[in-house]
């Protein structure tokens, strides 16, 4: 009786995984079956596609640099110190994750727009942020940074606190501990966070459209170019879509490989389960 149940449960798990995989992969696979290598290469030949790819990659690179250098230490502080209001701070940082892109766009305008909270001081410095490449980067940072900070915080929290104590009793400064031990030990988790943030940055659409607009070679990112092309030329849009999938996939894979995110040592539990299932 319980053997049947065990078998049924195991089957259900496999079915659930298959369904998940199928559903998530189908649209991606469909892009590539409908847009063959010809369309992919053809889309790269279009100047607006090349411009959009360049804008996307350049903005995402700057956004990631900002997110990693500011977000990582911030996450470390959240993970290792307790202070009044810490939970509130964490919630506030995570808030953009659940915000719809339109709200993010409006919020960025309300903060940095000429009529916004920082509008006066910015314009007195001669700065106008909306509709510039800076705005593209800001939109990416706003929507992606929380993903990295959250993951990085979990990664730092998972580092054995005993190790930090050991470092202290050995006379090492907190800076040395952070750079030489906490960072390397949290690297897999940091890589995962960076991966999520990068994917979100490359895919950013709504907030970018509202805050940065769409101008070829300046603010038109790949997702914006895809939408604009979609209205007139579905095949070309498929080609651009395939390009974005290929570029994002390659970047994510690179980050994961560099961060040790993929590797046999990462999932011993699954390996063991696999052995048992094969019995």
């Amino acid at each position: 009786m319980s053997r049947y149940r065990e078998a049924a449960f195991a089957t259900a798990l496999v079915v659930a995984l298959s369904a998940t995989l199928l559903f998530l992969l189908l649209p991606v696979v469909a892009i590539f079956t409908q847009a063959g290598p010809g369309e992919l290469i053809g889309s790269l030949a279009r100047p607006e596609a090349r411009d959009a790819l360049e804008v996307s990659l350049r903005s995402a690179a700057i956004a990631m640099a900002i997110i990693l250098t500011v977000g990582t230490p911030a996450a470390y502080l959240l993970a290792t110190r307790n202070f009044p209001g810490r939970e509130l701070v964490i919630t506030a940082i995570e808030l953009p994750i659940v915000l719809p892109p339109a709200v993010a766009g409006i919020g960025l305008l309300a903060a940095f727009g000429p009529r916004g909270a920082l509008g006066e001081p910015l314009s007195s410095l001669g700065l106008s942020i909306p509709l510039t490449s800076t705005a593209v980067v800001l939109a990416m940072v706003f929507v992606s940074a929380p993903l990295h900070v959250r993951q990085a915080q979990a990664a730092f929290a998972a580092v054995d606190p005993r190790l930090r104590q050991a470092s202290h009793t050995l006379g090492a400064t907190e800076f040395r501990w952070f750079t030489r031990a906490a960072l390397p030990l949290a690297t897999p988790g940091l890589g995962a966070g960076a991966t999520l943030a990068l994917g979100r940055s490359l895919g950013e659409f709504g907030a970018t459209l509202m805050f940065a607009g769409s101008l070829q070679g300046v603010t038109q990112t790949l997702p914006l170019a895809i939408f604009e092309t979609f209205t007139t030329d579905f095949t070309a849009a498929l080609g651009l879509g395939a390009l974005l999938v290929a570029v994002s996939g390659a970047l994510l894979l690179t980050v994961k490989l560099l961060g040790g995110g993929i590797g046999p040592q990462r999932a011993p539990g699954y390996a063991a389960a696999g052995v048992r299932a094969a019995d």
Partner: protein
Amino acid sequence: MGLSVRLDTPLPAFALRIDERVDHGVVAVVGPSGAGKSSVLEMIAGLRRAASGAVVNDGEAWLDTDRGINRPPQTRRVGYLFQDLALFPHLSALENVAWGVPGSRRQRRARAMELLERFGTGALSARRADRLSGGERRRVALARALGRDPQVLLLDEPLGGLDAASRRTAIDELGTAVDAVSGPTLLVTHDFADAVDLADEVAVMEQGRIVQRGTPYELGASPASRFVASLVGANTVTGHAARRPDGLTAVRLSSGTELVSADPGAGEVVASIFPADIALAREGPGGSALNAVAATVTGVATLGPRTRVGLRVPEALIAEITTVSARRLDLRVGGPVTAVWKATATVLVAAG
């Protein structure tokens, strides 16, 4: 000279309240888990805040809440061996040891290598810590603890979880570490046997307080409480003491069984008898200076040349006899036997 530790601070279940000096040698703090032992080490090292107290080493205050002194762990010269060793898993053995060594990169590597070799692990210097075996990790951790030339050595359960074979090696290695430190060593353990093997002096800790301090022999010979007696491994039974005409003391147990002790005593007492002091015989010999108590065998466990025998008199006692004797007596669970020991082996402790 030496280390003085005065702490008065609340822990979740009780208050930690100790005031001890350790001038030299190795002092073991022994107590059950949760007695607050590790907290003492952490407060000495500055890893945990003490609400009130002072830690002074060689006249140098590391902590003095009255004077507002609380130096960070980095400036307290301690060598700390963590229970789980806490090696940096991503660094090599050499980098682990060099972590605490001051000086230039070259000096640090040279000193780290020297320390690794002192513990016979020079050949492992390049290996990552998470690729080392348990014994190798302990050696590297000891080498690392000596890296900053500590004035005090703190050991948290240094023999915890070791098998008999590794234990001997570990004791020698810990001796090497202790000798390398100019000041005293403080270790905590829940096992009195560890303390006997490692320490010159033992402080027994119960619920945040040191209840007795002395050499292992002193603790066994005159335990201050039933807790100490059972901690050092003695049988403990309670009874009512009364002086006998011959000057000895009779202890009547609640079951009616009567023991005899050479210690003076009256009223409620705890009688403490080491298992190894109890001999077993088929029939009781005569003699008023001897205890000869009829017992039932409840269990027999043989470990090499020694055999531990569970007895019921009907109070529970354990006797430890040679395996040869056990064979000769042909002990059976449920069978009768007579437990025999000298009156001087019944140590009386005030009850409570």
